[in-house]
């Protein structure tokens, strides 16, 4: 191996799949080999069986749907507010000076610690779940979008002004398109974080969703179901990541390396 030497596309897929195989192999040896008790860790076959059972007999697909809707709902709400605010902060320094210190502070407030408060304020319904996602994503989004918008090369802005651009068009026609690919990348990243918040939100005071199923299974000591739930989350994350990347490449061909 040489540093930074690229691998072919086929080899890349091969390596990636190989690690998944290795992971399952180690898991199988540990469980089938009797090194770990069934009580603590279900074996891969039991996990698949439990998953099948969940999907067919317990309407798990509805739980998955609920969780996806909560993540997307909370995330979209956060984007709707964070995008204009982040753009304003990135483009106009007084707005940044006004909001940045507070947002920097707020972003370290753990979303999960708000759950008890949110239950008090909003009950245990959907509003509370959406709010957890919102709090978890909003402050991150605002800050990262502001940095993306403000991080433009000064000479591109100068060039626009010498071409007769007005201040609003510098924002609309230069700052925004310049930051667009990075903002799309930020969405992909923060959506991934939103997934961790939703599960936490569902672990407490919930009657549906993947997180709720996991709490239920814990009471029954059904590690197969828990692992199946976790794997489903991972798979959804993988698919959404893949979709995001594909859409970004389509939308911003000029930004691809």
């Amino acid at each position, binding site marked *: 191996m040489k540093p930074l030497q690229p691998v072919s596309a086929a080899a890349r897929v091969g390596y990636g799949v190989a690690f998944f195989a290795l992971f399952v192999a180690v898991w199988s040896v540990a469980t089938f080999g009797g090194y770990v008790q069934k009580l603590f860790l279900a074996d891969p076959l039991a996990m698949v069986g439990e998953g099948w059972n969940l999907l067919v007999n317990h309407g798990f697909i509805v739980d998955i749907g609920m969780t996806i809707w909560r993540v997307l709902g909370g995330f979209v709400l956060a984007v709707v507010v964070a995008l204009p605010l982040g753009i304003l902060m990135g483009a106009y320094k007084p707005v940044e000076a006004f909001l940045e210190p507070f947002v920097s502070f707020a972003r370290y407030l753990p979303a999960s610690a708000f759950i008890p408060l949110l239950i008090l304020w909003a009950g245990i319904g959907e509003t509370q779940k959406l709010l957890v996602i919102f709090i978890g994503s909003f402050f991150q989004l605002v800050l990262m979008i502001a940095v993306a918008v403000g991080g433009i090369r000064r000479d591109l802005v*100068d060039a*626009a002004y010498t071409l007769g651009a007005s201040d609003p068009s510098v924002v609309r026609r230069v700052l925004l398109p310049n930051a667009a690919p990075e903002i799309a990348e930020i969405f992909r990243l923060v959506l991934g974080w939103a997934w961790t918040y939703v599960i936490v939100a569902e672990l407490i005071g919930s009657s549906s969703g993947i997180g709720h199923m996991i709490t239920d299974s814990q009471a029954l000591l059904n590690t197969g179901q828990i692992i199946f739930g976790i794997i489903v989350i991972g798979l959804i994350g993988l698919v959404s990541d893949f979709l995001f990347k594909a859409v970004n490449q389509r939308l911003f061909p*000029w930004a691809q390396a």
Partner: protein
Amino acid sequence: MSKLLIDQVGKVFPARGKGQPTRALMPTSLNVADNDFITILGPSGCGKSTLLRIVGGLETATEGKILLDGAPVTGPGADRGFVFQSYTLFPWLTVVQNIAFGLREKGVPERERLDIARKWAERVGLAGFVDHFPKQLSGGMQQRTAIARALANDPKILLLDEPFGALDNQTRALMQEMLLGIWEREQKTVLFVTHDIEEAIFVGSRVVVMSARPGRIKADIPVELPHPRPYTIKTSPEFVALKERLVEEIRVEAVLAAEGH
């Protein structure tokens, strides 16, 4: 009447921390006639770019005033096209969209502005690249697009800040010929900053030599070479004589600059 009047324009950069304020440009005056091609020649750090950026409205003068067609310059605007040394094409726009950027700002209808932009792409030799993104172009092609973008706006004056400074020698020579050809055909008032003596003589009709920092004009030399100028003119006795004279002028300043005056 002059097209552009630079009247006692100077620049002092404010002190940073405990340091002294730095004077980049002594009060400088320059009269630019309509359709003049003036090259401003000086060692690096002599304030020639600062002067050009002040004319472009990208920096404010500490003193003095600038009049373009009698009207004072207060900030950047479409009447002064600017070409930068760095590559400043908008990466998200194609060549033709880049060239049409200023026209769209003026509210020219899409059809018309794309027509104008295509014509300019053709004039700078990029007819086959109108739909390419900047990252697909070589450095020379990017600077040609930048020149077309500035000219498509039909500015009163074109300001170029070492536009070919980052290009290799062969490309640079071709770009000089292209720019000169455009100037000979279109007739524009041009202010061209460079530290390359040969370039200053070849494209300019007047070479203004600036001193080491703080910059001031130390010589203003007309270039009496005929137009159109083929590249072979660079070996003519007149050209060589002028070059020798300028090498001497610049050398003194470069030595001063190197000694840190």
